[in-house]
């Protein structure tokens, strides 16, 4: 049977049984956010940091629906386009909730939402010195991935394709290379669109997938959350099982002697 008991995911000082990490954005309402998160069986959920609406302070908010005792809250730096803003954001998030395990994302432009690796590296250096356990969003460049690991990030998170594009894995070979060279967990983050993308990422050896839009924007988010949960598991098991080789020619599955015809 599946050895999911022993196949724990260790990120920094944290351990998880689930290899699916989810985001909390783009849902139509808070109950859907909560229900889909539960259906995904994820144990970690990313959140963004924004100004409180002063005139509407009594309005319900995300943490009324997502239990921060039940889930590991992963503050992110969504919306930050330079290192300084990202560092400010995570320092505030840590003060708000004591969260030391964080997601660093520093973006380069609003059209592609591609990571600005120069600013990402700067921010990572500051945050690691500041004692944060940094899970860092990056592109699929193996050189950058190694650099971020050397800086001391506890996980490296290469994109599959741009955030919210749902186009799957643009460069499977690079994900494979990044994983081969990495000593820290590799989480495919961004671009996963449907179950097969998540399974593929795990088959390539990814340690986890981070999925938001694919679930939130599915026609049936709860059902997609379950599909992603199963896809991540299936892909992980296939990876651990060690796949058969691909062959140029056929290889018969039944014996080629003992025929009673001819």
């Amino acid at each position, binding site marked *: 049977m599946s050895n999911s008991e022993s196949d724990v995911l260790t990120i920094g000082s944290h351990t998880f049984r689930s290899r699916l990490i989810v985001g909390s954005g783009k849902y139509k309402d808070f109950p859907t956010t909560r229900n889909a998160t539960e259906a995904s069986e994820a144990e970690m959920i990313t959140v963004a*940091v*924004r*100004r*409180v609406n002063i005139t509407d*302070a009594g309005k319900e908010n995300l943490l009324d629906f997502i239990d*921060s005792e039940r889930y590991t809250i992963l503050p992110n730096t969504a919306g930050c386009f330079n290192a300084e803003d990202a560092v400010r954001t995570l320092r*505030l998030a840590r003060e*708000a909730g004591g969260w030391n395990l964080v997601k660093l994302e520093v973006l380069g432009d609003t059209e592609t939402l591609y990571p600005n690796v120069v600013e990402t590296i700067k921010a990572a250096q500051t945050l690691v010195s500041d004692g944060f356990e940094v899970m860092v969003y990056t592109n699929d460049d193996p050189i950058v991935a190694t650099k971020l690991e050397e800086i001391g990030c506890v996980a490296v998170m290469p994109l599959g394709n741009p955030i919210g594009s749902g186009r799957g894995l643009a460069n499977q070979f690079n994900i494979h290379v990044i994983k081969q060279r990495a000593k820290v967990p590799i989480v495919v983050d961004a671009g996963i669109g449907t179950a097969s993308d998540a399974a593929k990422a795990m088959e390539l050896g990814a340690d986890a997938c981070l999925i938001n839009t694919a679930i939130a924007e599915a026609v049936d988010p709860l059902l997609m959350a379950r599909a992603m949960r199963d896809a991540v598991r299936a892909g992980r098991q296939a990876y651990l099982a060690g796949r058969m080789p691909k062959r140029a020619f056929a290889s018969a599955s039944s014996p080629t002697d003992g025929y009673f015809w001819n």
Partner: protein
Amino acid sequence: MKIQLNGENRVVAATTLAQLVQELGLETRTIAIEYNLEVAAKSGWSAHQIREGDRIEVVHMIGGG
């Protein structure tokens, strides 16, 4: 006292950060305060005085990827 709160000019009665949190009705929320570009430690909010013209950001966690 006139301060800049979350990007807008505002007159508040509070003289400390803790009083400000209460004045805004945010006591039970998971929030953080940035005071003139520095993180204001929660443990110090009751002692932390507010001055005229201070730039204060009050932030919380919302849905995002």
